[in-house]
C-alpha cells in the first residue's frame, strides 16, 4: 500500500498537467451540483423556519362560508377536550380601498384580527413602531407600504373600507408569512375584526376566509389537526397545521431541488465523459511505464491501484475546486435575485458540499475505471520490442476468426462486467440525485441508448466510408483512412461528442419547453379587469357604471353568475358514489367548484358528447336540473352523459342529470372556463353573486376612476386590475425563467468546454502520423484539410445522433416527468448539429496546430 501511495504521488507530480483537464471536468460538474443544491436548500430552510409564522399559529381552522351557530358550537365542543392553549379568530377578504380625499381605488387583502394575533412571528412596522392591537382598535388600520404610493397618502391619513373611514396608524414593513415575490391580490391592510364586521363588506356569498387560529401544546398538534380535518370536512371546513404547510412547501422545493440536481448530475456526466477520454489517452501514454513496473516486480493489482489512487486524488481535488467555484458562484448571485426568492442570504450548505464531493469522487472513479482496466492487458514483454507501444503487444495468443465463438472468446469479461457494474452505479447515482428511480432511469436509459447508437454508428461508418478510401483526392483519401485505420479514434470521438451534444441539446430543448410553459404574455385583446362579489341587486347598477365610465370595453363587459358547489354524490353507469364520503375517495372531485348557469356555449367550448340544452324547451320535471361537465371530469372520474350528480350549493342539495360533455380550450380563457355549467332555471333563483370580465380603459387614470366609482357605490365589490396582477405574475415568471436559464447556461458551457477537451485529447494519436506525413512532403494546408475533413465528418454524425437523442429525451421528460406540453425544437437541434460539426472540426484543427507548426523531427524523437 505504501508503494501504491508513493507511486501515485510521484506520478501525479509528473503528469498533473496532462490530467489538468480531468480535474477541470470534475470541478465544473461538482460546482454545478453544489451551487444548485445549496441555493435551494437555503431557500427551503428559510421557508420552513417561516412555516409557523405563515399561519401565525400552530393550527388553523378555516371556512369560506362563515361560522354558522351550529358549526361554531361543534368546533367549540371539539376544541374543549383538546390541548388548546389559546385561540383567536380572524377574517381575510380581498376588497377595494380608496383614500378618503382621493379618487383612486385599489384592491387590497384585508384582514381583521383580534388582540391575540399573531401567536407566532412578529409584525414589523416602519420606524421601529411596536405592534399592539391597540393600534387598530377603533377604526385604525395598518397598511402595506405599496398602498401609500398607490393611493398617494401617508401615515395618519384616512382610507375608506366598505364605506367606512379608517385611520392609517402604521406601515407594515414585514408581516409573518408574507413573502416578497409571492402572489397576492394587493397590499395588506390590517384592521380590528369587530371593525371589519361592522363595515358590512361580508354580504352573502362573499369571498372571505373565516379563520380560527389555535395555539396548541406541541405533541397534540398532529393528532388534533387530523381529527378536526376528518370530522369537519363534510362541513366544508379545512384544517391545517404548520407541520403540513412545512411539508407542502418542502415537497415543492424538494421537486425543484431534485430537478436541478438532475441537471447538475447531467453536467457531472458530461464531466465524466471528459474524465473517460482523458483517462483513455493517459493510459495509452503510460503503457511503457506500466510494463516497466511489471517488469521490476509490481503485480497488476498494485499497478491498477496506483492509477486508481491517482484518479481518486484528482477527483477529490477537482471536487474541492468545484466547491470553491460553487462558493464563488453563489456569492455572486445578485441581490435582486436573492430578494425574489425569499430574501435569504445564500451560502453553501454542508449537505450539498458533502454530496458534491461524493458525486465528484464517484463519477471520477466510475468513468476512469473502464479505461484504467486496460493496464491489466499490458505485458512487460513489449519492452523487448524496441520501445514500440500499443496494447496487445505480448498478449496471449488469440485465434483470429469471425465466428460468434471467437468473438465471445475475444470479449474481456472483466472489462465488460465492470462496464455493466459502472452503468448500474451511474443509474443509482442519477436516481439518488433526482431522488427518483424513474427520473434517474430515464436519463441513464437515454445515456445508454445514445451510447449504443453511437457505437453502432462508429461500426457502420468505418465500413460505409471504405469505398471512399480509393478516391484520388489525397486529403479525403487520408481522412477516410484515418477514420478506419487500426486504433482509429472514430468510436471515441463519436461517443464523447455524441453524448455531449445529446445532453447539452437535451437540456436546452427541455429548457425551451419549460420556458414555453411558463411564458406568459399580457393578452392584448382579452379582459384585463375583473369584478368579484357583485350581488344580484347590484348587477344593473354595475352595468350602468361600466357603460358610463368603462368606454367600449365597459359596454361590452360580461357579468357571469357564479355559485360555489361541491359534488356530494354520483349515480352513474360506471361510478356510484353514494355519499360525500365516497366522493372524497375520488380525490379532487371533492373540492369546492365554482359553477355557473347559462343558455349556451362560449366561444372556447365544444361539445364532445350529448347535446347542450335548448333553452327554449320547457324545463324538465321539477327537482332534476341539467348540467354540462368538462371533458377532464368525464375522463378522470368516469362520469358520463345520463348520469345523475348531487351537488351541495351553499348548503342546499341539488340533483342534476349530465346532458353533455364539453371541451374547454383553457389556453383561450378570455371567455372563462367552468367545470360544471347548469341550465338556467332553479339556480337562477338561488342566492348568488356575479363576476365581471371587461377590457378596462387604456388610460391608467380612467381605470382608477372606474374602480373608484364602483367602490364608492358598492363597497363590497372588488375590482381587480389584471394589469397589476399580470405584471406581478410576469415578474415571478421572469425570475423562474432566469433561474432555468442560468442552470441551462451552466450546462451548456460546461458541456462545450468538456467537448473541446475530449476532442483535443485525441490529438495525441495524430501527432506521430502527421509528423511522418510532413517528412514525406505534406504541406500544412494539406494536413489541415485532412484533419478538418475527418473531424467535421465525425462531428456532424455525432451531432445528428446527439440531436435525435435530445429530441427523444426532451419529449420523454416533458411528457412523462414534468407533465407539460411538448414541442419539437427543430431550429435549436438543427443549429446544434451544425454547430457541433463546426466546433469539432475547429477544435480538431486547433488542437493539432502545434503538430502542424512543430518541426517533425521533434515529434518523431519524442515518440
Amino acid at each position, binding site marked *: 500500500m*505504501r*508503494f501504491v501511495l*508513493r*507511486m501515485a504521488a*510521484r*506520478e501525479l*507530480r*509528473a*503528469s498533473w498537467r496532462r490530467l489538468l483537464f480531468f480535474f477541470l471536468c470534475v470541478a465544473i460538474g461538482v460546482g454545478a451540483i453544489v451551487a444548485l443544491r445549496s441555493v435551494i436548500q437555503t431557500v427551503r430552510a428559510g421557508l420552513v423556519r417561516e412555516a409557523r409564522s405563515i399561519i401565525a399559529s400552530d393550527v388553523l381552522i378555516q371556512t369560506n362560508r362563515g361560522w354558522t351557530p351550529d358549526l361554531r358550537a361543534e368546533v367549540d365542543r371539539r376544541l374543549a377536550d383538546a390541548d388548546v392553549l389559546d385561540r383567536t379568530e380572524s377574517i381575510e377578504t380581498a376588497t377595494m380601498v380608496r383614500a378618503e380625499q382621493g379618487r383612486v381605488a385599489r384592491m387590497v387583502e384585508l384582514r381583521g384580527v383580534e388582540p391575540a394575533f399573531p401567536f407566532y412571528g412578529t409584525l414589523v412596522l416602519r420606524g421601529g413602531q411596536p405592534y399592539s392591537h391597540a393600534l387598530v382598535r377603533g377604526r385604525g388600520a395598518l397598511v402595506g407600504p405599496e398602498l401609500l404610493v398607490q393611493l398617494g397618502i401617508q401615515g395618519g391619513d384616512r382610507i375608506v373600507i366598505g364605506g367606512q373611514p379608517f385611520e392609517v396608524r402604521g406601515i407594515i414593513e414585514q408581516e409573518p408569512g408574507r413573502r416578497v415575490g409571492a402572489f397576492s391580490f394587493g397590499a395588506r391592510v390590517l384592521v380590528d375584526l369587530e371593525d371589519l364586521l361592522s363595515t358590512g363588506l361580508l354580504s352573502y356569498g362573499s369571498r372571505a376566509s373565516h379563520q380560527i387560529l389555535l395555539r396548541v401544546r406541541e405533541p397534540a398538534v398532529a393528532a388534533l389537526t387530523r381529527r378536526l380535518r376528518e370530522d369537519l370536512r363534510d362541513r366544508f371546513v379545512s384544517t391545517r397545521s404548520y407541520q403540513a404547510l412545512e411539508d407542502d412547501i418542502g415537497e415543492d422545493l424538494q421537486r425543484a431541488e431534485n430537478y436541478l440536481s438532475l441537471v447538475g448530475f447531467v453536467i457531472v456526466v458530461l464531466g465524466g465523459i471528459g474524465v473517460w477520454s482523458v483517462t483513455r489517452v493517459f493510459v495509452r501514454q503510460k503503457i*511503457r*511505464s506500466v*510494463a*516497466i*513496473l*511489471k*517488469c*521490476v*516486480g*509490481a*503485480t*497488476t*493489482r*498494485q499497478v491498477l491501484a496506483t492509477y486508481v489512487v491517482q484518479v481518486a486524488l484528482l477527483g477529490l481535488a477537482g471536487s474541492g475546486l468545484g466547491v470553491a467555484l460553487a462558493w464563488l458562484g453563489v456569492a455572486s448571485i445578485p441581490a435582486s435575485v436573492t430578494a425574489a426568492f425569499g430574501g435569504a442570504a445564500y451560502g453553501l450548505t454542508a449537505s450539498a458540499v458533502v454530496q458534491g464531493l461524493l458525486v465528484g469522487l464517484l463519477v471520477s472513479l466510475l468513468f476512469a475505471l473502464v479505461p484504467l482496466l486496460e493496464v491489466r492487458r499490458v*505485458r*512487460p*514483454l513489449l*519492452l*523487448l520490442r*524496441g*520501445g514500440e507501444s500499443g496494447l496487445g503487444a*505480448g498478449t*496471449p*495468443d*488469440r*485465434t*483470429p476468426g469471425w465466428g460468434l465463438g471467437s468473438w465471445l472468446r475475444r470479449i474481456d469479461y472483466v472489462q465488460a462486467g465492470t462496464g455493466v457494474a459502472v452503468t448500474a452505479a451511474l443509474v443509482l447515482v442519477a436516481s439518488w440525485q433526482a431522488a427518483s428511480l424513474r427520473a434517474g432511469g430515464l436519463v441513464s436509459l437515454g445515456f445508454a441508448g445514445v451510447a449504443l447508437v453511437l457505437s453502432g454508428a462508429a461500426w457502420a461508418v468505418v465500413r460505409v466510408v471504405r469505398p471512399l478510401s480509393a478516391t484520388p483526392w489525397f486529403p479525403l483519401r487520408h481522412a477516410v483512412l484515418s477514420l478506419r485505420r487500426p486504433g482509429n479514434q472514430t468510436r471515441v470521438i463519436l461517443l464523447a461528442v455524441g453524448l455531449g451534444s445529446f445532453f447539452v441539446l437535451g437540456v436546452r430543448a427541455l429548457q425551451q419547453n419549460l420556458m414555453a410553459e411558463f411564458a406568459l404574455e399580457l393578452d392584448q385583446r382579452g379582459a384585463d379587469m375583473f369584478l368579484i362579489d357583485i350581488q344580484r341587486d347590484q348587477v344593473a347598477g354595475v352595468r350602468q357604471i361600466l357603460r358610463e365610465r368603462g368606454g367600449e370595453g365597459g359596454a361590452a363587459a360580461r357579468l357571469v353568475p357564479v355559485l360555489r358547489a361541491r359534488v356530494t354524490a354520483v349515480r352513474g353507469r360506471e361510478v356510484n358514489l353514494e355519499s360525500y364520503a365516497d366522493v372524497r375517495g375520488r380525490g379532487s372531485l371533492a373540492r369546492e367548484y365554482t359553477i355557473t348557469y347559462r343558455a349556451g356555449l362560449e366561444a372556447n367550448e365544444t361539445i364532445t358528447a350529448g347535446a347542450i340544452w335548448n333553452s327554449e324547451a320547457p324545463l324538465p320535471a321539477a327537482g332534476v336540473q341539467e348540467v354540462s361537465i368538462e371533458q377532464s371530469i368525464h375522463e378522470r372520474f368516469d362520469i358520463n352523459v345520463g348520469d345523475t350528480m348531487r351537488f351541495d350549493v351553499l348548503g342546499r342539495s341539488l340533483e342534476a342529470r349530465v346532458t353533455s360533455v364539453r371541451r374547454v380550450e383553457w389556453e383561450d380563457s378570455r371567455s372563462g372556463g367552468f367545470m360544471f355549467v347548469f341550465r338556467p332555471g332553479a339556480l337562477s333563483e338561488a342566492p348568488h353573486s356575479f363576476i365581471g370580465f371587461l377590457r378596462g380603459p387604456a388610460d391608467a387614470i380612467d381605470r382608477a376612476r372606474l374602480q373608484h366609482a364602483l367602490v364608492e357605490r358598492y363597497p363590497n365589490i372588488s375590482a381587480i386590475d389584471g394589469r397589476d396582477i399580470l405584471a406581478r405574475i410576469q415578474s415571478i415568471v421572469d425570475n423562474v425563467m432566469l433561474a432555468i436559464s442560468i442552470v441551462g447556461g451552466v450546462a451548456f458551457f460546461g458541456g462545450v468546454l468538456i467537448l473541446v477537451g475530449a476532442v483535443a485529447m485525441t490529438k495525441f494519436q495524430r501527432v506521430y502520423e502527421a509528423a511522418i506525413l510532413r517528412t514525406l512532403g505534406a504541406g500544412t494546408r494539406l494536413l489541415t484539410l485532412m484533419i478538418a475533413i475527418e473531424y467535421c465528418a465525425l462531428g456532424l454524425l455525432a451531432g445528428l445522433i446527439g440531436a435525435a437523442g435530445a429530441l427523444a429525451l426532451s419529449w420523454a421528460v416533458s411528457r412523462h416527468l414534468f407533465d407539460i406540453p411538448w414541442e419539437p425544437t427543430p431550429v435549436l437541434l438543427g443549429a446544434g448539429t451544425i454547430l457541433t460539426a463546426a466546433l469539432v472540426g475547429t477544435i480538431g484543427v486547433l488542437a493539432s496546430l502545434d503538430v502542424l507548426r512543430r518541426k517533425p523531427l521533434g515529434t518523431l524523437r519524442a515518440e
Partner: protein
Amino acid sequence: MIELRGVSRTVPSGSGTLTILHPLDLVIPAGRVVAITGPSGSGKSTLLGLIAGLDAPSQGRIVIDGTDITVLGEDGLAKLRGAKIGFVFQFFHLLPSLTAFENVLVPMEIAGGRGGARRADGLLAEVGLTDRRHHYPSQLSGGEQQRVAIARALANDPPILLADEPTGNLDSATGHQVIELLLNVNRTRRTTLVLVTHDPELAALADMTVSLRDGRVVQADERLALADP
C-alpha cells in the same frame, strides 16, 4: 540455476503458425556469465524474455532456482522477477516521471522492504551517479540512463541479472563502461549474468556462449547442455 526443458515459442501468423524458437534444452549454472548471440530475428530476445517470465513458452518448462515458472500466473511471475531477476534493456526503460533515485527505489518499494533509500543511494554510488540522483531520465545521457537501469536491476539483490543488448544503444566508450560495470557485478556479487548481444567483443568476455539462428541453437558451450533428468 536456470533450467529450460523442451522450450519453444510459436505465434499465430496469417493462416498458420510461425515458430520463433524451436524446442531447446539449456542449463545455466549459477554465478556464470552467459552470452546469447546470433543475427537479428534469430530468437535471442525471445529466449531472454522467456527466462524472465516476460513471455510464456508455447511448450516446455522453465525452472529458476527450483521454481517452475511456466505454471505461475502474471502476478506470481511479477513477484518472482521482483525477488530473483534483474533486467537491463537496450532502450533503458526508466520511468520518465521519476528521478534516478526514485527509479532505483521502486523495486524495493514494490517488494515492501525497509531501508530502501539508503540502499538506493549506495547503488547509485556504486554506478557512479551520486550527484545525478535527483535528475530525471530526460536529463541524463544514454550511458547514465543505462547505469541507473543497472542500479535498478540490482535493487533487490537478485541472483540473476538479464541484459538485452545492454550496449546496443551506446557509443563504444560508454558501452565499455557499462560492460565493465556488469562484469563487476558478477564478480563481486556472484550474480548469474545472461546477456543478449551481437557484439562479438562483449560475447568474448562471457564464460560461455549460445548461438542462435532462425530459432535454433547452432552452437553452445557444452557446459550448458542439459544433464539427463
